[in-house]
């Protein structure tokens, strides 16, 4: 009898919270606006595969003998320009001298420069390597890295083609054999699931977990401190209701809210950003619930320590900010220095996001995310055991 009351009370308290929530139009709108906002912002601000578009690159040809450009450099420039036009990434512009090219980079008019060395043709003819220097803009490290990599590989590819035709001509074996001789290894890149890697595909699982888990962490303290401030909490505390029912009811309501929020993120990601769910959908929902479970304790602890809404808000900011950046929502954890990687390993959100990515992007099944599931469950259980006595004590002051 006692236990049925306990459960019924939780359901009624949850129901009350959800009715209030469903009648708050502004909140409902935010449920859609907020994730949309986050996806659009983060999805487009951070670099994706197609950032390199028509980047102006200065071309300086120093390979000149008696007023005439060397053959080899002219061929290389022709090949580069053709490649630039075909891929649309670079817009090569012939520039008079190296110092002029440097000046243009400093002024921000060029994103980089390709400088063909003085004795380029002569070196090649005499059996040596021709020198090409790539200048880059140090004020834009992310762009420079991509420019360098793209130019390096373009120049190397042109060089390889040249080598293949030389071998073909001099040794007299056919083209395929010549290629095998020059580049004995052939590298093919393939994902484990069909489709190209997309930043949204990477982002969506992270944002989903982030919003779901934060909604419990924020929602719980906010709901309770709000009721404390308006005085309605006294009404619930003065009723013959167990403290456990109160916290359970509140958690239940926030969980429903969290899963709704997660579902909306997923739907937006699929419909608007072409994200695919490769794993089973029940596992996606299951992971959301597990994520919520692992965070309930944090919510209850904040509720118990913070006496009013403002203090609760501050606590949440303190926890959320590092979590957003350390848990790998926007950047992969592997990119971080080792000490931050350790910090990220202490956050449940990291595991939740990791698992969700495996399921959504890689189509993983339960057996593939067992470690994460166990860790999340452990996190949640330990935090609950810590938080419930704290809550009970805070309520009987």
């Amino acid at each position, binding site marked *: 009898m006692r236990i049925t009351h306990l459960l019924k009370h939780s359901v009624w308290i949850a129901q009350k919270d959800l009715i209030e929530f469903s009648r708050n139009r502004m909140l409902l709108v935010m449920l859609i606006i907020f994730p949309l906002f986050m996806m659009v912002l983060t999805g487009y601000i951070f670099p994706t595969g197609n950032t390199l578009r028509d980047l102006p690159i200065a071309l300086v040809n120093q390979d000149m003998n008696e007023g005439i450009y060397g053959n080899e450099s002219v061929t290389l420039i022709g090949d580069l320009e053709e490649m630039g036009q075909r891929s649309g990434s670079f817009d090569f512009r012939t520039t008079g001298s190296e110092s002029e090219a440097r000046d243009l980079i400093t002024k921000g008019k060029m994103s980089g420069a390709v400088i063909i060395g003085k004795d380029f043709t002569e070196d090649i003819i005499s059996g040596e390597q021709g020198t090409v220097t790539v200048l880059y803009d140090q004020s834009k490290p992310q762009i420079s890295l991509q420019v360098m990599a793209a130019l390096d590989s373009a120049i190397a590819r042109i060089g390889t083609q040249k080598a293949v035709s030389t071998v073909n001509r001099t040794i007299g074996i056919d083209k395929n054999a010549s290629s095998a001789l020059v580049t004995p290894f052939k590298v093919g890149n393939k994902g484990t699931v069909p489709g190209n890697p997309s930043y949204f595909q990477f982002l969506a699982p992270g944002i989903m977990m982030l919003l779901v888990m934060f909604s419990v962490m924020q929602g719980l303290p906010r709901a309770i401190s709000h009721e404390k401030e308006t005085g309605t909490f*006294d009404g619930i505390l003065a009723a013959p209701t167990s403290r456990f029912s109160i916290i359970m009811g509140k958690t239940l309501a926030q969980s429903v809210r969290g899963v709704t929020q997660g579902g909306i993120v997923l739907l937006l990601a699929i419909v608007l950003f072409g994200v695919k769910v490769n794993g089973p959908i029940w596992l996606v929902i299951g992971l959301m619930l597990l994520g919520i479970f692992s965070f309930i304790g944090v919510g209850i602890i904040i509720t118990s320590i913070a006496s009013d809404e403002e203090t609760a808000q501050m606590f949440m900011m303190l926890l959320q900010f590092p979590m957003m950046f350390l848990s790998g929502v926007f950047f992969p954890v592997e990119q971080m220095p080792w000490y931050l990687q350790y910090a990220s390993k202490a956050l449940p959100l990291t595991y939740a996001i990791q698992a969700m990515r495996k399921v959504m992007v890689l189509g993983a099944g339960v057996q593939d995310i067992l470690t994460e599931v166990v860790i999340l469950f452990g996190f949640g259980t330990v935090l609950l055991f810590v938080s419930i006595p704290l809550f009970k004590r805070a309520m009987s002051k």
Partner: protein
Amino acid sequence: MTSSGQSCNIETKGLTKKFGGFTAVDGVDFCVNEGEIFGLLGPNGAGKSTIIRMLTTLSMPTSGTAKVAGHDIVKEPHKVREMVGIVSEKMIMYDRLTPRENLRLFGRLYNVPGRELEDRIEELLTIVNMTKWADTQIGKFSTGMRQRINVVRSLVSKPRVVFMDEPTLGLDPQSTTEIRKLIQRLNRSDGLTIILTTHIMNEADVLCGRIGLIDKGRIAAIGSPSELKDKISEKGRTIVDLDLIDPPHDAFDRLRMAEFVLSAAQVENRVKVIVSRENAFEDVLEAVRKNEMRLRNASVMSPSLEDVFLHFTGRSMVEEVKDRVPMAGGHGPWRRSGSGRVR
């Protein structure tokens, strides 16, 4: 209604609550009888609300204890909760819910069975003429309407005792009258025991069978309004209100020197004197003249609860409330002389 001979429905013993170094409630003892309206009267910050919070199990006493409807508030809080209703100064209701939904939620939390609960809700809404608004969200209501719901919300579980913390605070005169009538009706027809706190003397006078005067966390006096007034008006005691022209700051002290003056208090140029004789108006005027003070006006008054409060605490409640002076260790504007030696 007196306490003699009856067993207490609510009984406190040395009830004390400290917040850090500040003692909000200091060893309070009182007894409330079954079916009584008992008022806790005192200025803001006197400790009334803290007493109510302890008796409704919302706050644990630092020391001392109390029994409510036969159950100990410290040892059996759950049993106490089942027995009592609470009308809080901050209204307990959800704005986005309708009155019916609010009452239903709380009825369920008190384990009132479904059918009975729906009937009870209908009955309560009828009592306060709110059936028409039963399914409108409370956020759209006026303060008066909200307070009606706030009061009946406390009754949904059929409590034996209802605690009301400032039930008419912030209401317009019409709503105030309505709520007071409702309180009286509940007390008379259902025999409900009601404890209410108020800082309005008139309210306590009209509503309460007995009153406990609270000052600085202590009970200054307990009794029915007429008993309390009799204490300062018995044996033909006279209260004279003097309006003086440029009186010295210690006018009240000088007047008290007259052997027939029991107590005196002063706010600026007004001095209130309680005299231990009948028809002593002339004597008071004589004393004023003897002290070379000049009169603008003077009148004999019948005692009010305000005078009672003044007499027992030496401070005026009206002034305290008006100025919202924090009470902790503060002093009222009335400087007082004389003692509580009332026979």
